[in-house]
């Protein structure tokens, strides 16, 4: 057992009301497992990840990593954010070396290791570039490389590909699958993209909002390497979509007027609509 969340809850107290972002989440993650947290926006999946990272403290419950309670952020758990969070005053290789520099590794070893991981993400040619010279996809690959240098068994990823264009996203998903396969790290991956979850995860945790909680746990028992186009992934996707639909609708309802309904808005009724006229 790598990471254990035991009855984790989180409340935010704002000026007007108390928001239950998470309520009583209990979850166990196995060593070497690829777990996806899937849910609509506002269901607290990022909060849950931050709690596991030690960046936020749970209001109730406890989190254990390798039998030890988590109280603060530390280099034994690597984190990747939606924005790459690379340092603009350092070039690529110095960015990748940063975590190792913090742990006091000698210069020569650092450089060797950094080049080795840059090779894994295919960016050795850009080692002397500065961050603003890289595309979004390349930045996330540098961030991944940086996370891999830390020798952390657990990799926490908070929608790392959400801001990328779909081509770079696909490439990165494939690369991540391969890297996970090679390094055998435990990965917790937050996403709102069902396709992504099915492609990558061993186990998908579907979350519900208001308050944030686990709704359903789905094992994705498909052969690897998986690819987006194959029928079996699409089948599992549809299955998860059904679970998720109610949740999405519930969250959306809170944001729309009360007369709004998902069903009604998806079908065009009436003879004036000329369905199929463009065929």
């Amino acid at each position, binding site marked *: 057992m790598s990471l254990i969340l035991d009855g984790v809850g989180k409340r935010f107290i704002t000026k007007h009301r108390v928001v239950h972002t998470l309520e009583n989440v209990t979850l166990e993650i196995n060593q070497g497992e690829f777990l996806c947290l899937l849910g609509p926006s506002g269901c607290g999946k990022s909060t849950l990840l931050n709690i596991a990272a030690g960046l936020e403290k749970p209001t109730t419950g406890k989190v254990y990593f390798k039998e030890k309670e988590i109280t*603060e952020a530390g280099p034994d758990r690597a984190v990747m954010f939606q924005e790459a*969070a690379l*340092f603009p005053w350092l070039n690529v290789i110095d960015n990748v070396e*940063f975590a190792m520099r913090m742990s006091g590794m000698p210069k020569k070893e650092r450089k060797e290791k950094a080049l080795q991981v840059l090779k894994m993400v295919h960016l050795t040619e850009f080692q002397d570039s500065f961050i603003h010279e890289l595309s979004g996809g390349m930045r996330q690959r540098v961030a991944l490389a940086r996370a891999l240098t830390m020798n952390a068994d657990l990799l926490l990823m908070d929608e790392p590909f959400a801001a990328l264009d779909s081509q770079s996203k696909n490439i990165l998903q494939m690369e991540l699958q391969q890297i996970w396969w090679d390094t055998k790290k435990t990965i917790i991956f937050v996403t709102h993209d069902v396709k992504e979850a099915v492609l990558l995860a061993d186990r998908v945790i579907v979350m519900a909002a208001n308050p944030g909680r686990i709704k359903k746990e789905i094992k994705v028992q498909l052969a690897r390497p998986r690819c987006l186009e194959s029928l079996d992934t699409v089948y599992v996707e549809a299955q998860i979509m059904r679970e998720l639909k109610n949740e999405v609708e519930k969250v959306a309802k809170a944001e729309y007027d009360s007369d709004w309904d998902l069903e009604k808005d998806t079908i065009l009724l009436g003879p004036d609509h000329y369905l199929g006229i463009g065929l």
Partner: protein
Amino acid sequence: MVYELGVKYLKVWQPNGFPSPINIAKTLEILLVDHTLGIAVLTSIMRLAIGYGISLVFGFLFALIMLRFKALQENLSPLLLGLQTLPNVCWVPLAVLWFGLRESTIIFVVVIGSTFAITLAVESGVKNVKSIYLRAAQTMGAKGLKTYQDVALPAALPEIINGMKQGWAFAWRGLISGEMLMQVKGLGEILIVGKEKADINQIMAIMVVIIVLGLMVNKLVFERVEANIRYRWGLD
């Protein structure tokens, strides 16, 4: 040429109020030949270097202490802002009473003028650092002073450089006003002697020297650092 036009043909300027560039150059030459200028520039620059160096150390130190203790920050920030509006010259009488007519008096005026500009810049720069950088650094095992040294200060550097430039300008002001009022060797002294001799050429010559020195330091130091930052951050 503009000068010749103004004085000789349009007669808008009086030659004894607006010296010709040629006369200024001649005065400069005289001052250079009898070594007054060289010695004055060197002593002034020495004072400036010592004073500004001390300001940098104290400026950063104060800022770090204020960042560490929130209560101090809330109470001291308005006070420092207030001190900033106080012109350097105001410190001269006080400094004379404290230290007497000595070298340390001028350096005190230089330091008190530029320290707070640096403190305020470092403090607000670090406070404005994007929290994602600090969070990322935390997850990579950065703690305590290391976070400041390797993340917060480099991230705040663009703002800090601005404060250092401001501090530099204030240091110059403190220096010249100190030298002028105390009449010890230095650029300010030559300036005040020029006034006493009613020698407009000498006054203008020293003003030119001060401007040129200021520009040189800006060009050689601050502009280079800024260009480097802009290049790294991709701001060009």
